[in-house]
Protein backbone atom coordinates (compact mmCIF):
# COMPACT_ATOMS: atom_id res chain seq x y z
CA UNK A 1 0.00 0.00 0.00
CA UNK A 2 1.23 3.46 -0.92
CA UNK A 3 1.44 6.13 1.78
CA UNK A 4 1.09 9.88 1.72
CA UNK A 5 4.46 11.60 1.33
CA UNK A 6 6.30 12.48 4.57
CA UNK A 7 5.31 16.13 4.20
CA UNK A 8 1.64 15.43 3.66
CA UNK A 9 0.81 14.90 -0.01
CA UNK A 10 -1.50 12.15 -1.23
CA UNK A 11 -0.78 11.29 -4.83
CA UNK A 12 -3.63 10.66 -7.30
CA UNK A 13 -2.39 7.05 -7.44
CA UNK A 14 -2.85 6.63 -3.70
CA UNK A 15 -6.35 8.12 -3.89
CA UNK A 16 -7.17 5.65 -6.64
CA UNK A 17 -5.72 2.72 -4.74
CA UNK A 18 -7.95 3.55 -1.77
CA UNK A 19 -11.02 3.21 -3.98
CA UNK A 20 -11.85 6.91 -3.95
CA UNK A 21 -11.89 7.37 -7.75
CA UNK A 22 -14.88 6.04 -9.71
CA UNK A 23 -14.48 4.46 -13.12
CA UNK A 24 -14.25 6.47 -16.34
CA UNK A 25 -17.89 5.96 -17.19
CA UNK A 26 -19.09 7.34 -13.86
CA UNK A 27 -16.62 10.21 -14.04
CA UNK A 28 -17.98 11.25 -17.42
CA UNK A 29 -21.59 10.95 -16.29
CA UNK A 30 -21.66 13.92 -13.94
CA UNK A 31 -20.33 15.45 -10.73
CA UNK A 32 -18.99 13.03 -8.12
CA UNK A 33 -17.19 13.33 -4.78
CA UNK A 34 -13.52 12.41 -4.55
CA UNK A 35 -12.37 11.65 -1.01
CA UNK A 36 -8.74 12.16 -0.01
CA UNK A 37 -9.17 10.77 3.50
CA UNK A 38 -6.16 8.48 3.79
CA UNK A 39 -5.86 7.74 7.51
CA UNK A 40 -8.08 6.03 10.10
CA UNK A 41 -9.29 9.27 11.71
CA UNK A 42 -12.02 8.74 14.34
CA UNK A 43 -14.58 10.80 12.42
CA UNK A 44 -17.80 10.09 10.57
CA UNK A 45 -19.01 13.57 9.67
CA UNK A 46 -19.29 12.67 5.96
CA UNK A 47 -21.58 9.73 6.70
CA UNK A 48 -24.32 11.82 8.23
CA UNK A 49 -23.62 14.89 6.08
CA UNK A 50 -24.65 13.05 2.91
CA UNK A 51 -28.34 13.60 2.07
CA UNK A 52 -28.27 10.59 -0.28
CA UNK A 53 -26.68 8.15 2.17
CA UNK A 54 -23.91 7.48 -0.32
CA UNK A 55 -21.18 7.30 2.35
CA UNK A 56 -20.85 4.41 4.76
CA UNK A 57 -18.37 3.42 7.42
CA UNK A 58 -17.84 0.50 9.79
CA UNK A 59 -16.22 1.55 13.05
CA UNK A 60 -15.68 5.29 13.36
CA UNK A 61 -11.94 4.82 12.81
CA UNK A 62 -12.43 3.09 9.46
CA UNK A 63 -12.17 4.88 6.15
CA UNK A 64 -15.36 5.98 4.39
CA UNK A 65 -16.77 3.93 1.52
CA UNK A 66 -18.54 5.86 -1.24
CA UNK A 67 -21.32 4.50 -3.40
CA UNK A 68 -20.67 6.36 -6.64
CA UNK A 69 -24.08 5.37 -7.98
CA UNK A 70 -25.81 7.18 -5.15
CA UNK A 71 -23.47 10.21 -5.07
CA UNK A 72 -24.71 13.14 -7.15
CA UNK A 73 -21.75 15.41 -6.40
CA UNK A 74 -23.85 17.97 -4.51
CA UNK A 75 -20.81 19.08 -2.49
CA UNK A 76 -22.43 19.17 0.94
CA UNK A 77 -19.75 16.85 2.32
CA UNK A 78 -17.07 19.14 0.86
CA UNK A 79 -18.08 21.89 3.24
CA UNK A 80 -18.66 19.60 6.22
CA UNK A 81 -15.48 17.48 6.20
CA UNK A 82 -13.33 18.72 9.11
CA UNK A 83 -10.24 17.52 7.25
CA UNK A 84 -11.18 19.42 4.08
CA UNK A 85 -10.41 16.17 2.33
CA UNK A 86 -13.38 15.95 -0.03
CA UNK A 87 -13.68 17.49 -3.48
CA UNK A 88 -16.15 17.19 -6.33
CA UNK A 89 -15.04 16.71 -9.92
CA UNK A 90 -17.29 17.05 -12.93
CA UNK A 91 -16.02 15.83 -16.27
CA UNK A 92 -19.47 16.00 -17.88
CA UNK A 93 -19.08 19.76 -18.25
CA UNK A 94 -16.98 21.61 -20.76
CA UNK A 95 -14.79 23.07 -19.42
CA UNK A 96 -14.66 20.56 -16.56
CA UNK A 97 -15.33 21.68 -12.99
CA UNK A 98 -13.81 21.12 -9.57
CA UNK A 99 -15.43 21.94 -6.21
CA UNK A 100 -13.19 22.80 -3.25
CA UNK A 101 -13.68 24.06 0.33
CA UNK A 102 -12.64 27.66 0.93
CA UNK A 103 -12.11 29.33 4.34
CA UNK A 104 -9.70 32.11 3.55
CA UNK A 105 -12.10 35.02 3.31
CA UNK A 106 -15.21 36.03 1.42
CA UNK A 107 -15.88 33.55 -1.36
CA UNK A 108 -14.83 34.75 -4.79
CA UNK A 109 -18.12 35.70 -6.47
CA UNK A 110 -19.67 33.92 -9.43
CA UNK A 111 -17.81 34.68 -12.63
CA UNK A 112 -14.67 35.87 -10.86
CA UNK A 113 -11.35 34.54 -12.11
CA UNK A 114 -9.26 32.65 -9.54
CA UNK A 115 -5.86 31.05 -9.43
CA UNK A 116 -6.03 27.25 -9.35
CA UNK A 117 -3.63 25.60 -6.92
CA UNK A 118 -2.46 22.01 -6.84
CA UNK A 119 -1.73 19.90 -3.75
CA UNK A 120 1.56 21.71 -3.09
CA UNK A 121 0.21 25.19 -3.69
CA UNK A 122 1.60 25.66 -7.20
CA UNK A 123 -0.61 27.69 -9.55
CA UNK A 124 -1.62 25.35 -12.39
CA UNK A 125 -3.92 27.68 -14.27
CA UNK A 126 -6.84 30.02 -13.88
CA UNK A 127 -10.54 29.43 -13.88
CA UNK A 128 -13.85 31.14 -13.26
CA UNK A 129 -16.13 30.59 -10.28
CA UNK A 130 -19.33 28.87 -11.39
CA UNK A 131 -21.15 28.81 -8.05
CA UNK A 132 -20.66 28.67 -4.32
CA UNK A 133 -22.56 28.12 -1.10
CA UNK A 134 -21.75 28.45 2.57
CA UNK A 135 -21.91 25.86 5.37
CA UNK A 136 -21.00 26.96 8.92
CA UNK A 137 -18.53 29.56 7.66
CA UNK A 138 -16.93 27.26 5.09
CA UNK A 139 -17.51 28.16 1.46
CA UNK A 140 -17.91 25.42 -1.08
CA UNK A 141 -16.67 26.87 -4.35
CA UNK A 142 -17.06 25.34 -7.81
CA UNK A 143 -14.66 26.51 -10.50
CA UNK A 144 -14.05 25.73 -14.14
CA UNK A 145 -10.65 24.26 -14.90
CA UNK A 146 -8.92 24.54 -18.30
CA UNK A 147 -8.39 20.81 -18.96
CA UNK A 148 -9.74 17.39 -17.84
CA UNK A 149 -6.34 16.33 -16.43
CA UNK A 150 -6.55 19.18 -13.94
CA UNK A 151 -9.63 17.85 -12.13
CA UNK A 152 -7.40 15.49 -10.16
CA UNK A 153 -4.80 18.22 -9.58
CA UNK A 154 -6.66 21.37 -8.54
CA UNK A 155 -7.31 21.28 -4.78
CA UNK A 156 -7.52 24.95 -3.77
CA UNK A 157 -8.30 28.35 -5.24
CA UNK A 158 -6.95 31.79 -4.51
CA UNK A 159 -8.38 35.11 -5.65
CA UNK A 160 -6.18 36.62 -8.35
CA UNK A 161 -4.10 39.33 -6.77
CA UNK A 162 -4.97 42.78 -8.00
CA UNK A 163 -7.67 41.22 -10.17
CA UNK A 164 -11.41 41.31 -9.82
CA UNK A 165 -11.34 38.57 -7.21
CA UNK A 166 -8.97 40.27 -4.77
Amino acid at each position, binding site marked *: MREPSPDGIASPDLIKELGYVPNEERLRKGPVAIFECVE*PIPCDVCVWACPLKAVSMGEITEKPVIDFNKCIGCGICVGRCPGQAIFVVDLSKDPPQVTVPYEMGEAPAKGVEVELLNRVGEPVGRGRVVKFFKDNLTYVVTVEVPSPELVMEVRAVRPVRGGDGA
Partner: protein
Amino acid sequence: MGYTGLRIHHHPVLTFRRGREVTIYFEGEPIKAFEGEALAAALYAAGHKILRYSPKHGRPRSVFCMIGKCGSCIVEVDGIAKRACQELVRDGMRVRRIKGYPVLKEAGGGAKPVEEVEAEALIIGGGPAGLAAAEVLGTHGVRTLIVDDSHRLGGQLIKQTHRFFGSRELFAGLRGFQIAEKYEEKIRSFESVDVLLRTTAIGVFKEGVFAVGEERNYVLRAGTYLVATGAVENYLPFENNDLPGVMGAGAAQTLMNVWGVLPGKRPLIVGAGNVGLIVAYQLLQAGAKPAAIVEAAPRIGGWFVHAAKVRRYGVPIYVRHTIVAAHGEEGVEAATIAEVDERWRPIPGTEKTIECDAVLLAVGLTPNVDLLRQFGAKTKYVPELGGLTALRTEYLETTVPGVYVAGDVAGVEEATTAIIEGWIAGYSMLMKLRGERDEWMKERERLLKLLKTYRSSPVSARVRAGLEKVIIGGEEVA
Protein backbone atom coordinates in the same frame (compact mmCIF):
# COMPACT_ATOMS: atom_id res chain seq x y z
CA MET B 1 6.24 52.57 17.90
CA GLY B 2 2.75 52.65 16.58
CA TYR B 3 1.13 50.90 13.67
CA THR B 4 2.43 47.37 13.34
CA GLY B 5 -0.26 45.90 11.13
CA LEU B 6 -0.59 43.00 13.54
CA ARG B 7 -4.25 43.68 14.38
CA ILE B 8 -6.57 41.40 12.44
CA HIS B 9 -9.47 43.33 10.91
CA HIS B 10 -11.05 40.72 8.67
CA HIS B 11 -11.21 37.06 9.49
CA PRO B 12 -13.09 34.41 7.51
CA VAL B 13 -14.29 32.55 10.59
CA LEU B 14 -14.02 34.81 13.63
CA THR B 15 -15.67 38.07 14.60
CA PHE B 16 -13.72 40.02 17.18
CA ARG B 17 -15.99 41.85 19.57
CA ARG B 18 -13.60 44.50 20.79
CA GLY B 19 -14.43 46.90 23.60
CA ARG B 20 -14.29 50.67 23.27
CA GLU B 21 -10.97 52.25 22.37
CA VAL B 22 -9.11 53.54 25.41
CA THR B 23 -5.67 54.88 26.23
CA ILE B 24 -3.20 53.04 28.42
CA TYR B 25 0.35 54.03 29.25
CA PHE B 26 3.38 51.82 28.73
CA GLU B 27 6.57 53.22 30.21
CA GLY B 28 4.78 56.56 30.18
CA GLU B 29 3.92 56.40 26.48
CA PRO B 30 0.22 56.52 25.57
CA ILE B 31 -1.08 53.53 23.60
CA LYS B 32 -4.47 52.95 22.02
CA ALA B 33 -6.00 49.70 23.19
CA PHE B 34 -9.41 48.09 23.46
CA GLU B 35 -11.13 47.82 26.82
CA GLY B 36 -11.36 44.25 28.05
CA GLU B 37 -8.66 42.76 25.83
CA ALA B 38 -5.58 41.08 27.27
CA LEU B 39 -2.97 43.66 28.16
CA ALA B 40 -0.25 41.50 26.57
CA ALA B 41 -2.17 41.44 23.28
CA ALA B 42 -2.61 45.22 23.33
CA LEU B 43 1.09 45.80 23.94
CA TYR B 44 2.12 43.25 21.31
CA ALA B 45 -0.19 44.84 18.75
CA ALA B 46 1.34 48.23 19.52
CA GLY B 47 4.80 46.88 18.77
CA HIS B 48 5.91 46.53 22.37
CA LYS B 49 7.15 42.99 22.32
CA ILE B 50 9.56 43.40 25.21
CA LEU B 51 7.54 43.21 28.41
CA ARG B 52 10.25 42.61 31.02
CA TYR B 53 13.94 41.80 31.44
CA SER B 54 15.26 38.61 32.96
CA PRO B 55 16.59 39.06 36.52
CA LYS B 56 20.06 37.64 36.00
CA HIS B 57 21.22 38.56 32.51
CA GLY B 58 18.79 41.31 31.65
CA ARG B 59 17.55 39.42 28.56
CA PRO B 60 14.37 40.80 27.01
CA ARG B 61 11.22 38.76 27.66
CA SER B 62 7.92 38.69 25.80
CA VAL B 63 4.79 36.58 25.78
CA PHE B 64 5.36 32.83 25.72
CA CYS B 65 2.23 30.95 26.84
CA MET B 66 -0.55 33.60 26.82
CA ILE B 67 -2.56 31.53 29.33
CA GLY B 68 -1.06 32.67 32.60
CA LYS B 69 1.28 29.76 33.18
CA CYS B 70 4.81 30.89 32.35
CA GLY B 71 5.50 34.26 33.99
CA SER B 72 7.30 35.55 30.93
CA CYS B 73 4.97 38.54 30.55
CA ILE B 74 4.84 39.83 34.15
CA VAL B 75 4.60 43.62 34.13
CA GLU B 76 3.83 46.26 36.72
CA VAL B 77 0.24 47.47 36.41
CA ASP B 78 -0.53 50.53 38.55
CA GLY B 79 2.30 49.48 40.82
CA ILE B 80 1.40 45.80 41.16
CA ALA B 81 3.07 42.86 39.39
CA LYS B 82 0.58 41.17 37.05
CA ARG B 83 0.63 38.64 34.21
CA ALA B 84 -0.01 40.81 31.16
CA CYS B 85 -1.74 37.93 29.35
CA GLN B 86 -4.33 37.54 32.13
CA GLU B 87 -4.75 41.24 32.90
CA LEU B 88 -7.55 42.93 30.97
CA VAL B 89 -7.18 46.46 29.62
CA ARG B 90 -8.82 49.31 31.54
CA ASP B 91 -8.79 52.93 30.50
CA GLY B 92 -5.80 54.82 31.85
CA MET B 93 -3.90 51.86 33.28
CA ARG B 94 -0.20 52.53 33.76
CA VAL B 95 2.13 49.74 32.83
CA ARG B 96 5.86 49.43 33.38
CA ARG B 97 8.45 46.85 32.47
CA ILE B 98 10.03 44.99 35.34
CA LYS B 99 13.80 44.67 35.46
CA GLY B 100 14.77 41.92 37.87
CA TYR B 101 12.28 40.19 40.12
CA PRO B 102 8.74 41.43 40.61
CA VAL B 103 8.18 42.98 44.03
CA LEU B 104 5.19 41.74 45.96
CA LYS B 105 2.96 44.59 46.93
CA GLU B 106 -0.61 44.69 48.16
CA ALA B 107 -3.15 46.89 46.46
CA GLY B 108 -4.34 49.85 48.50
CA GLY B 109 -6.88 48.89 51.14
CA GLY B 110 -4.93 45.92 52.48
CA ALA B 111 -5.48 42.22 52.00
CA LYS B 112 -8.36 40.94 49.89
CA PRO B 113 -11.28 39.38 51.74
CA VAL B 114 -11.31 35.58 51.89
CA GLU B 115 -14.55 33.78 51.18
CA GLU B 116 -15.17 30.16 52.10
CA VAL B 117 -17.25 28.16 49.63
CA GLU B 118 -18.55 24.61 50.02
CA ALA B 119 -19.77 22.46 47.16
CA GLU B 120 -20.41 18.79 46.50
CA ALA B 121 -18.05 18.82 43.53
CA LEU B 122 -15.18 21.20 42.82
CA ILE B 123 -13.87 21.27 39.27
CA ILE B 124 -10.52 22.96 38.79
CA GLY B 125 -10.23 23.97 35.16
CA GLY B 126 -13.10 24.93 32.86
CA GLY B 127 -11.74 23.41 29.66
CA PRO B 128 -13.35 20.58 27.70
CA ALA B 129 -12.76 17.97 30.43
CA GLY B 130 -14.01 20.16 33.27
CA LEU B 131 -17.06 21.31 31.33
CA ALA B 132 -17.99 17.77 30.32
CA ALA B 133 -17.81 16.66 33.96
CA ALA B 134 -19.88 19.69 34.99
CA GLU B 135 -22.45 18.73 32.36
CA VAL B 136 -22.95 15.31 33.97
CA LEU B 137 -22.99 16.72 37.50
CA GLY B 138 -25.26 19.63 36.59
CA THR B 139 -27.71 17.33 34.83
CA HIS B 140 -28.07 15.38 38.08
CA GLY B 141 -28.41 18.44 40.27
CA VAL B 142 -25.07 18.08 42.05
CA ARG B 143 -23.91 21.33 43.68
CA THR B 144 -20.84 22.00 41.57
CA LEU B 145 -18.29 24.79 41.43
CA ILE B 146 -15.97 25.36 38.48
CA VAL B 147 -12.90 27.49 39.10
CA ASP B 148 -10.83 28.75 36.17
CA ASP B 149 -8.05 31.32 35.82
CA SER B 150 -9.16 32.53 32.41
CA HIS B 151 -11.70 35.23 31.59
CA ARG B 152 -13.91 32.72 29.76
CA LEU B 153 -15.00 29.12 30.02
CA GLY B 154 -13.79 26.66 27.40
CA GLY B 155 -10.07 26.30 28.07
CA GLN B 156 -8.15 26.01 24.83
CA LEU B 157 -11.31 25.37 22.80
CA ILE B 158 -11.88 29.11 22.55
CA LYS B 159 -8.92 29.52 20.22
CA GLN B 160 -9.70 26.68 17.84
CA THR B 161 -11.21 27.86 14.57
CA HIS B 162 -11.17 24.53 12.74
CA ARG B 163 -13.96 22.00 12.64
CA PHE B 164 -13.48 19.02 14.89
CA PHE B 165 -13.30 15.41 13.85
CA GLY B 166 -15.56 12.95 15.57
CA SER B 167 -19.10 11.76 15.79
CA ARG B 168 -22.36 13.61 16.25
CA GLU B 169 -22.30 13.04 20.00
CA LEU B 170 -18.92 14.75 20.16
CA PHE B 171 -19.91 17.91 18.31
CA ALA B 172 -18.04 16.84 15.18
CA GLY B 173 -18.19 19.40 12.42
CA LEU B 174 -18.43 22.26 14.88
CA ARG B 175 -15.46 24.55 15.36
CA GLY B 176 -13.65 24.56 18.71
CA PHE B 177 -14.84 28.00 19.74
CA GLN B 178 -18.40 27.03 18.83
CA ILE B 179 -18.18 23.98 21.10
CA ALA B 180 -16.99 26.27 23.91
CA GLU B 181 -19.92 28.64 23.32
CA LYS B 182 -22.41 25.76 23.31
CA TYR B 183 -20.95 24.36 26.50
CA GLU B 184 -20.87 27.70 28.24
CA GLU B 185 -24.56 28.20 27.51
CA LYS B 186 -25.39 24.74 28.78
CA ILE B 187 -23.34 25.03 31.96
CA ARG B 188 -24.87 28.43 32.75
CA SER B 189 -28.33 26.89 32.44
CA PHE B 190 -27.73 24.50 35.38
CA GLU B 191 -28.96 25.97 38.63
CA SER B 192 -26.66 23.74 40.67
CA VAL B 193 -23.45 24.76 38.87
CA ASP B 194 -21.52 27.91 39.76
CA VAL B 195 -18.51 29.33 37.96
CA LEU B 196 -15.63 31.40 39.29
CA LEU B 197 -13.67 32.94 36.43
CA ARG B 198 -10.35 34.80 36.58
CA THR B 199 -9.69 32.87 39.75
CA THR B 200 -6.54 30.80 40.08
CA ALA B 201 -6.49 27.72 42.31
CA ILE B 202 -2.94 27.90 43.63
CA GLY B 203 -2.66 25.46 46.50
CA VAL B 204 -4.22 22.61 48.42
CA PHE B 205 -4.26 23.04 52.19
CA LYS B 206 -5.95 21.14 54.98
CA GLU B 207 -8.59 23.90 55.06
CA GLY B 208 -9.33 23.40 51.36
CA VAL B 209 -8.21 24.62 47.96
CA PHE B 210 -6.93 28.19 48.07
CA ALA B 211 -7.83 30.29 45.05
CA VAL B 212 -6.88 33.84 44.16
CA GLY B 213 -9.52 35.95 42.47
CA GLU B 214 -9.68 39.52 41.26
CA GLU B 215 -11.76 40.98 44.05
CA ARG B 216 -11.38 38.33 46.71
CA ASN B 217 -9.64 35.10 47.57
CA TYR B 218 -11.33 31.80 48.28
CA VAL B 219 -11.03 28.67 50.35
CA LEU B 220 -12.93 26.01 48.44
CA ARG B 221 -14.06 22.70 49.93
CA ALA B 222 -15.97 19.86 48.33
CA GLY B 223 -16.90 16.22 48.68
CA THR B 224 -15.21 15.34 45.40
CA TYR B 225 -12.60 17.12 43.34
CA LEU B 226 -11.77 17.04 39.64
CA VAL B 227 -8.35 18.29 38.61
CA ALA B 228 -8.70 19.27 34.95
CA THR B 229 -5.87 21.77 34.77
CA GLY B 230 -4.67 20.91 31.27
CA ALA B 231 -1.11 21.19 30.11
CA VAL B 232 1.58 23.77 29.36
CA GLU B 233 3.58 24.15 26.17
CA ASN B 234 7.12 22.86 25.94
CA TYR B 235 10.24 24.89 25.26
CA LEU B 236 12.98 23.77 22.91
CA PRO B 237 16.70 24.43 23.36
CA PHE B 238 18.30 26.46 20.54
CA GLU B 239 20.37 29.62 20.31
CA ASN B 240 18.33 32.72 21.21
CA ASN B 241 15.26 30.69 22.10
CA ASP B 242 14.25 33.44 24.51
CA LEU B 243 14.10 36.17 21.87
CA PRO B 244 10.80 38.06 21.87
CA GLY B 245 8.67 36.48 19.14
CA VAL B 246 9.61 32.94 20.11
CA MET B 247 6.47 31.60 21.71
CA GLY B 248 4.30 28.55 22.04
CA ALA B 249 2.07 27.75 19.08
CA GLY B 250 -0.85 27.79 21.51
CA ALA B 251 0.14 31.27 22.63
CA ALA B 252 0.04 32.34 19.00
CA GLN B 253 -3.46 30.88 18.74
CA THR B 254 -4.59 32.83 21.79
CA LEU B 255 -3.10 36.04 20.43
CA MET B 256 -4.65 35.77 17.00
CA ASN B 257 -7.87 33.83 17.56
CA VAL B 258 -8.98 35.16 20.94
CA TRP B 259 -7.56 38.69 20.76
CA GLY B 260 -7.23 39.30 17.03
CA VAL B 261 -3.51 40.06 17.04
CA LEU B 262 -1.06 38.28 14.74
CA PRO B 263 2.04 36.80 16.40
CA GLY B 264 3.89 37.85 13.24
CA LYS B 265 3.30 38.24 9.53
CA ARG B 266 5.71 35.51 8.56
CA PRO B 267 6.18 33.06 11.42
CA LEU B 268 8.28 29.92 11.33
CA ILE B 269 6.61 26.93 12.95
CA VAL B 270 8.62 24.27 14.73
CA GLY B 271 6.89 20.89 14.90
CA ALA B 272 4.49 19.26 12.44
CA GLY B 273 2.20 17.54 14.91
CA ASN B 274 -1.46 18.53 14.83
CA VAL B 275 -0.84 21.73 16.80
CA GLY B 276 1.88 22.93 14.42
CA LEU B 277 -0.13 22.05 11.31
CA ILE B 278 -3.32 23.62 12.61
CA VAL B 279 -1.62 26.82 13.74
CA ALA B 280 -0.16 27.18 10.22
CA TYR B 281 -3.65 26.94 8.72
CA GLN B 282 -5.01 29.40 11.27
CA LEU B 283 -2.21 31.85 10.41
CA LEU B 284 -3.22 31.66 6.74
CA GLN B 285 -6.81 32.40 7.72
CA ALA B 286 -5.72 35.35 9.83
CA GLY B 287 -3.82 36.82 6.90
CA ALA B 288 -0.25 35.83 7.80
CA LYS B 289 2.07 33.89 5.54
CA PRO B 290 3.83 31.13 7.47
CA ALA B 291 7.48 30.89 6.38
CA ALA B 292 7.65 27.11 6.83
CA ILE B 293 7.04 24.25 9.21
CA VAL B 294 10.08 22.27 10.34
CA GLU B 295 9.80 18.79 11.82
CA ALA B 296 12.71 16.79 13.22
CA ALA B 297 11.05 13.41 12.61
CA PRO B 298 11.24 11.79 9.16
CA ARG B 299 7.54 12.47 8.60
CA ILE B 300 4.80 14.72 9.88
CA GLY B 301 3.40 13.74 13.26
CA GLY B 302 -0.12 15.10 12.86
CA TRP B 303 -2.96 13.93 10.64
CA PHE B 304 -2.15 13.96 6.97
CA VAL B 305 -5.27 15.99 6.12
CA HIS B 306 -4.13 18.85 8.37
CA ALA B 307 -0.82 18.95 6.46
CA ALA B 308 -2.57 18.79 3.09
CA LYS B 309 -4.62 21.86 4.05
CA VAL B 310 -1.51 24.03 4.39
CA ARG B 311 0.54 22.41 1.64
CA ARG B 312 -2.10 23.34 -0.94
CA TYR B 313 -1.61 26.99 0.00
CA GLY B 314 2.12 26.62 -0.55
CA VAL B 315 3.42 26.37 3.03
CA PRO B 316 6.55 24.19 2.89
CA ILE B 317 7.07 21.44 5.45
CA TYR B 318 10.70 20.45 6.01
CA VAL B 319 10.85 17.03 7.63
CA ARG B 320 14.16 15.88 9.21
CA HIS B 321 14.84 19.54 10.01
CA THR B 322 15.07 21.54 13.20
CA ILE B 323 15.70 25.08 14.27
CA VAL B 324 19.25 25.78 15.44
CA ALA B 325 19.08 29.52 16.10
CA ALA B 326 16.83 32.54 16.11
CA HIS B 327 18.29 35.89 15.11
CA GLY B 328 17.41 39.47 15.91
CA GLU B 329 18.06 42.28 18.37
CA GLU B 330 14.78 43.06 20.11
CA GLY B 331 12.74 40.38 18.41
CA VAL B 332 12.91 37.58 15.86
CA GLU B 333 14.11 38.71 12.42
CA ALA B 334 15.27 35.37 11.02
CA ALA B 335 15.98 31.79 12.00
CA THR B 336 18.52 29.18 10.99
CA ILE B 337 17.26 25.69 10.36
CA ALA B 338 19.30 22.57 9.60
CA GLU B 339 18.79 18.99 8.56
CA VAL B 340 19.07 16.42 11.34
CA ASP B 341 20.49 12.90 11.38
CA GLU B 342 18.72 9.79 12.72
CA ARG B 343 19.44 10.90 16.25
CA TRP B 344 17.98 14.36 15.59
CA ARG B 345 21.40 16.07 15.71
CA PRO B 346 21.84 18.96 13.24
CA ILE B 347 24.10 18.00 10.31
CA PRO B 348 26.84 20.63 9.87
CA GLY B 349 26.81 22.30 6.49
CA THR B 350 23.05 21.94 5.97
CA GLU B 351 22.12 25.20 7.69
CA LYS B 352 19.72 27.50 5.93
CA THR B 353 18.54 30.92 7.09
CA ILE B 354 14.86 31.73 6.80
CA GLU B 355 13.42 35.20 7.09
CA CYS B 356 10.68 35.21 9.71
CA ASP B 357 9.31 37.51 12.41
CA ALA B 358 8.19 34.92 14.95
CA VAL B 359 9.05 31.35 15.89
CA LEU B 360 6.13 29.27 17.08
CA LEU B 361 7.02 26.18 19.07
CA ALA B 362 4.68 23.24 18.61
CA VAL B 363 6.88 20.68 20.29
CA GLY B 364 4.50 19.10 22.72
CA LEU B 365 2.91 19.84 26.05
CA THR B 366 3.49 18.85 29.65
CA PRO B 367 0.60 18.01 32.00
CA ASN B 368 0.00 20.67 34.62
CA VAL B 369 0.16 18.36 37.68
CA ASP B 370 1.09 20.75 40.50
CA LEU B 371 -2.29 20.67 42.21
CA LEU B 372 -2.57 16.89 41.86
CA ARG B 373 0.71 16.51 43.69
CA GLN B 374 -0.47 18.91 46.36
CA PHE B 375 -3.55 16.76 46.82
CA GLY B 376 -1.09 13.93 47.47
CA ALA B 377 -1.93 11.96 44.34
CA LYS B 378 0.82 9.59 43.19
CA THR B 379 2.31 10.62 39.88
CA LYS B 380 4.54 8.86 37.42
CA TYR B 381 6.78 10.08 34.59
CA VAL B 382 5.33 8.76 31.34
CA PRO B 383 6.92 10.31 28.22
CA GLU B 384 4.09 8.99 26.00
CA LEU B 385 1.62 11.12 27.96
CA GLY B 386 3.79 14.24 28.06
CA GLY B 387 5.59 13.85 31.40
CA LEU B 388 4.45 13.48 34.98
CA THR B 389 0.85 12.46 35.31
CA ALA B 390 -1.38 10.89 37.93
CA LEU B 391 -1.89 7.19 38.54
CA ARG B 392 -5.62 6.56 38.32
CA THR B 393 -8.27 3.93 37.86
CA GLU B 394 -9.93 3.60 34.49
CA TYR B 395 -12.81 5.54 36.06
CA LEU B 396 -10.29 8.36 36.60
CA GLU B 397 -9.98 8.34 40.39
CA THR B 398 -6.44 9.10 41.56
CA THR B 399 -4.68 7.39 44.47
CA VAL B 400 -6.42 9.92 46.72
CA PRO B 401 -10.06 8.85 47.19
CA GLY B 402 -12.50 11.44 45.87
CA VAL B 403 -9.89 13.22 43.73
CA TYR B 404 -10.27 12.66 39.99
CA VAL B 405 -8.39 13.66 36.83
CA ALA B 406 -9.47 14.23 33.24
CA GLY B 407 -8.16 15.86 30.09
CA ASP B 408 -4.61 16.83 29.21
CA VAL B 409 -3.45 16.80 32.83
CA ALA B 410 -4.15 13.06 32.74
CA GLY B 411 -2.02 12.67 29.60
CA VAL B 412 -1.75 15.02 26.63
CA GLU B 413 -4.26 14.09 23.94
CA GLU B 414 -6.98 16.15 22.34
CA ALA B 415 -10.25 17.88 23.10
CA THR B 416 -12.54 15.03 22.07
CA THR B 417 -10.88 12.50 24.38
CA ALA B 418 -10.81 15.16 27.11
CA ILE B 419 -14.59 15.55 26.77
CA ILE B 420 -15.19 11.80 27.04
CA GLU B 421 -12.87 11.60 30.05
CA GLY B 422 -14.77 14.51 31.59
CA TRP B 423 -18.06 12.63 31.22
CA ILE B 424 -16.55 9.49 32.75
CA ALA B 425 -15.08 11.44 35.67
CA GLY B 426 -18.43 13.20 36.05
CA TYR B 427 -20.24 9.87 36.50
CA SER B 428 -17.55 8.64 38.91
CA MET B 429 -17.98 11.76 41.04
CA LEU B 430 -21.75 11.50 40.86
CA MET B 431 -21.65 7.93 42.16
CA LYS B 432 -19.11 8.81 44.84
CA LEU B 433 -21.59 11.38 46.12
CA ARG B 434 -24.93 9.64 45.51
CA GLY B 435 -24.09 5.97 45.45
CA GLU B 436 -23.98 3.56 42.51
CA ARG B 437 -26.94 3.18 40.17
CA ASP B 438 -27.37 0.76 37.33
CA GLU B 439 -28.15 3.34 34.66
CA TRP B 440 -25.14 5.47 35.66
CA MET B 441 -22.85 2.44 35.69
CA LYS B 442 -24.12 1.46 32.25
CA GLU B 443 -23.61 4.92 30.84
CA ARG B 444 -20.08 5.07 32.26
CA GLU B 445 -19.24 1.72 30.67
CA ARG B 446 -20.60 2.94 27.33
CA LEU B 447 -18.39 6.03 27.58
CA LEU B 448 -15.36 3.90 28.40
CA LYS B 449 -16.02 1.89 25.28
CA LEU B 450 -16.40 5.07 23.23
CA LEU B 451 -13.08 6.32 24.58
CA LYS B 452 -11.40 3.05 23.60
CA THR B 453 -12.76 3.39 20.06
CA TYR B 454 -11.41 6.92 19.79
CA ARG B 455 -8.03 5.67 20.85
CA SER B 456 -8.01 2.64 18.59
CA SER B 457 -6.33 4.15 15.53
CA PRO B 458 -2.60 3.56 14.96
CA VAL B 459 -1.96 7.25 15.62
CA SER B 460 -3.02 6.70 19.25
CA ALA B 461 -0.61 3.80 19.79
CA ARG B 462 1.73 5.96 21.86
CA VAL B 463 -1.08 7.18 24.09
CA ARG B 464 -2.30 3.61 24.57
CA ALA B 465 1.18 2.50 25.58
CA GLY B 466 1.39 5.41 28.03
CA LEU B 467 -1.98 4.68 29.58
CA GLU B 468 -0.95 1.12 30.37
CA LYS B 469 1.64 2.56 32.72
CA VAL B 470 -0.74 4.73 34.76
CA ILE B 471 -4.02 2.83 35.01
CA ILE B 472 -4.31 1.11 38.36
CA GLY B 473 -6.89 -1.19 39.91
CA GLY B 474 -9.53 0.24 42.24
CA GLU B 475 -7.93 -1.48 45.24
CA GLU B 476 -4.86 0.73 44.82
CA VAL B 477 -6.80 3.90 45.62
CA ALA B 478 -5.43 4.54 49.13
